[in-house]
């Protein structure tokens, strides 16, 4: 049990010395960390772990090496990873078969396994140390603190990484001073809105004492964003600590986590962390000998995007349909079970312990004038290094996509980056040098959102992307208010008309008018931002909409009704593979045999073709293309 500040300090010193020694190899052992994020787990990280376990025992290496699983390493496209201390050698894209070689060559023989090292896509240079890889160089880990270096199920390692130090400092301060610390840090909500966190806390603090709640929004709905998942998986105690600091500041006695049911690993680790903290006496009554008592509860979502909206989330915890409430009253006045409540996002709460532990100045030294600190982005889509990156606010999109992300794969052309998910918009080539912060992104017609950043290349059709988001929103609209319920459905129909090649320019005008109506008249953020993907793609890629409508042509060859597959008769050698693959017998022989080829070329009957693409995938000679 950790009952006093002195207990905590003593235990933390002990644990950090222990962890430090372990990483330095002071016990005479090498130390292997295995990535245990969702991405790596689905690429056999658990099998790799089992193989290490088996072979270490079999080869009798137990006295030479230790290993454990940690949270996400961030560069998910290169996973699964292992990292070996004290040298900090990073091996990537491992297979179960590679484990033996690592143990024999590196652990026994002290020789790095070159073929498993990261290769820089630009210089083709092999890089052994994680910190030397460009992907990691520009990053600053505040919200991702200790994610990927500590064992998230080991309480002692979390203590070694500074867990509860921020809370301890907060408990020695006056409640109002804690709020001032957050206000001074300039922290803004990381879930999307960017509302100053300290001001939210202040509203709840100013409510009369009594039942109050802190709610952590872990309903990470933006498809393509997974930072909250990674934080909960990699360092759950940091989020719990952030919640408790918030609880102390506003005078709450209870905290509720609301986490997506789609994240089973995160849920399990969070549950485990809550139990361990309760056992240690750090959650419960009179924490660290103070007057502050706090309980932490966990509730799971059930697959409704709208529950990421704070009032809908509160209704969901209350066992109701997840429909938003009109605001005001704001949750800070009338929230969970009508008591004053604050709802903070996972990443926001993960920043809080850092601010209290290191002081607000340390946080505020990063960022731009109005957006302080760092932001985690989930970089995905058509970019070489897919993964999680945490960079100071003010980093440019160019740095994010090209320096950290390693550019666009397969020599394709960058077209757009979508930020803010279904509520956000597209940024293009001309925005690449804009420093990323809340206000700049809004000025450019997009928004920060939760940090999803999907890169698109020349092969993506922007009308199709807008349709994708509208389909998503239409499906997820809760149905409470008519502008969103009916408007999103109508907008989807109009977009479908465009991608089917059946729309007229009048439809486009109607679409724009409707978008403006839905934006200004919907009840909650979901509806108010739903038209953004349409409006921003219309602004930046108007010519693509025009091509679909006027020329009945999809420039990126994505929209099925407006494209066809064609066989280049000069390249076709007549092997007939495509003909055999075609599920609807749309391919047949022609009379033409290209010079130098022995068999007649094939051709596609576009009347019969269902555009499944199997022929193009099967052709070994690149003779089939989309037109």
């Amino acid at each position, binding site marked *: 049990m950790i009952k006093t500040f002195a207990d905590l300090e003593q235990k933390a010193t002990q644990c950090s010395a222990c962890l430090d020694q372990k990483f330095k190899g002071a016990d005479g052992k090498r130390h292997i960390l295995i990535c245990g994020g*969702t*991405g790596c*787990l*689905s*690429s056999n990280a658990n099998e790799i772990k089992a193989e290490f376990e088996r072979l270490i025992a079999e080869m009798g290496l137990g006295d030479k090496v230790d290993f454990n699983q940690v949270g996400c390493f961030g560069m*998910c*496209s290169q*996973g699964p990873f292992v990292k070996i201390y004290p040298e900090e050698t990073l091996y990537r894209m491992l297979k179960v078969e590679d484990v033996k070689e690592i143990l024999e060559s590196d652990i026994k023989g002290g020789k790095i396994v070159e073929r498993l090292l990261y290769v820089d896509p630009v210089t083709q240079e092999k890089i052994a140390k994680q910190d030397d890889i460009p992907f990691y160089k520009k990053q600053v880990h505040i919200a991702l603190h200790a994610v990927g270096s500590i064992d998230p199920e080991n309480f002692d390692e979390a203590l070694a990484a500074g867990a509860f130090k921020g809370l301890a400092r907060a408990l020695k301060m006056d409640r109002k001073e804690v709020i001032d610390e957050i206000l001074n840090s300039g922290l803004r909500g990381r879930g999307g809105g960017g509302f100053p966190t300290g001001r939210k806390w202040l509203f709840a603090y100013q409510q009369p004492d009594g039942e109050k709640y802190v709610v952590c929004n872990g309903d*990470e*709905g*933006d*498809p*393509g*964003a*997974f930072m909250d*998942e990674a934080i909960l998986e990699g360092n759950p105690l940091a989020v719990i600590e952030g919640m408790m600091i918030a609880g102390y500041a506003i005078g709450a006695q209870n905290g509720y986590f609301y986490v997506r*049911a*789609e*994240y*089973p690993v995160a849920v399990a680790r969070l549950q485990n962390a809550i139990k361990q903290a309760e056992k240690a006496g750090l959650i419960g009554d009179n924490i660290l000998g103070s007057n502050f008592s706090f309980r932490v*509860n966990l*509730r*799971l*979502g*059930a*697959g*409704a*995007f709208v529950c990421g909206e704070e009032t809908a989330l509160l209704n*969901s*915890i*209350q*066992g*109701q*349909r*997840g429909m938003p409430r009109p605001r005001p009253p704001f949750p800070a006045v009338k929230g969970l*079970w009508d008591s004053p409540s604050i709802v903070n996002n996972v990443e926001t709460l993960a920043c809080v312990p850092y601010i209290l532990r290191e002081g607000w100045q340390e946080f505020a030294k990063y960022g731009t004038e109005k957006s302080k600190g760092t932001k985690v982005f*989930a970089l*995905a*889509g*058509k970019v070489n290094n*897919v*993964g999680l990156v945490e960079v100071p606010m003010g980093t440019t999109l160019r740095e994010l996509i090209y320096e950290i992300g390693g550019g666009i794969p397969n020599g394709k052309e960058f077209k757009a980056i*979508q930020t803010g*998910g279904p509520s956000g918009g597209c940024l293009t080539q001309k925005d690449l040098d804009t420093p990323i912060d809340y206000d700049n992104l809004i000025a450019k017609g997009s928004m920060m959102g939760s940090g*999803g950043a*999907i890169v*698109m290349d020349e092969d*993506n059709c922007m009308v199709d*992307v807008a349709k*994708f*988001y509208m389909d*998503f929103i239409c499906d*997820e609209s*809760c149905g409470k208010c008519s502008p969103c319920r009916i408007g999103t459905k109508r907008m989807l129909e109009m977009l479908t008309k465009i991608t089917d090649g059946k729309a007229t320019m009048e439809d486009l005008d109607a679409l724009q008018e409707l978008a403006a109506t839905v934006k200004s008249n919907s009840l909650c953020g979901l509806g108010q931002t739903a038209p953004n993907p349409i409006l921003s793609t219309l602004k930046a890629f108007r010519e693509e909409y025009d091509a679909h409508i006027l020329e009945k042509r999809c420039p990126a060859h994505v929209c099925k009704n407006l494209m066809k597959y064609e066989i280049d008769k000069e390249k076709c050698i007549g092997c007939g593979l495509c003909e055999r693959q075609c*599920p609807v017998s749309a391919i047949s022989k022609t009379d033409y045999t290209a010079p130098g080829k022995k068999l007649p070329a094939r051709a596609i009957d576009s009347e019969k073709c269902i555009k*499944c*693409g*199997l022929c193009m*995938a*099967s052709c070994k000679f690149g003779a089939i293309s989309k037109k």
Partner: protein
Amino acid sequence: MSQLSEAAVKQINAICDSHANERTPLMMILSDIQKQFGYIPLEVQELVSERTGIPVAEIYGVVTFYSFFSLKPKGKYVIGCCLGTACYVKGAQQVVDKFSEILGIKPGQTTEDGLFTLDALRCIGACAISPAIKINGKVYPKVAVSAVPDIINEYKSKEAKA
């Protein structure tokens, strides 16, 4: 589950009771039932209503609101195709279409033999290995359209052996 077995009634009551100390536990009760039985038909909702005092209308409202709760039984293997943005821009729609074509069902439906349910999921957080699918919890990374028949056959042959 046209008529609930005695064992099922017992189990459902036990689930309701296990959350009795929680404030507004309806979501937790329904999650547990969905996990245990795979669906939440009207008879079960009536039972939950009797035990907790929450009106059936309210329970039905909640069950039909959330995509995780279902009124009908799901297939033995639930194929969840991620249609998050990262997966979508890498061609997830074609993967769903292929499953749909081979199994002869649309997303949200179950095959007649009760073996497969096809679901279109919103982001499962596996964006780095997109397009991803999830079958009964197992994640398949970077699924190519051409790999779909093999994946289905993997489960069919498992069934044939069993």
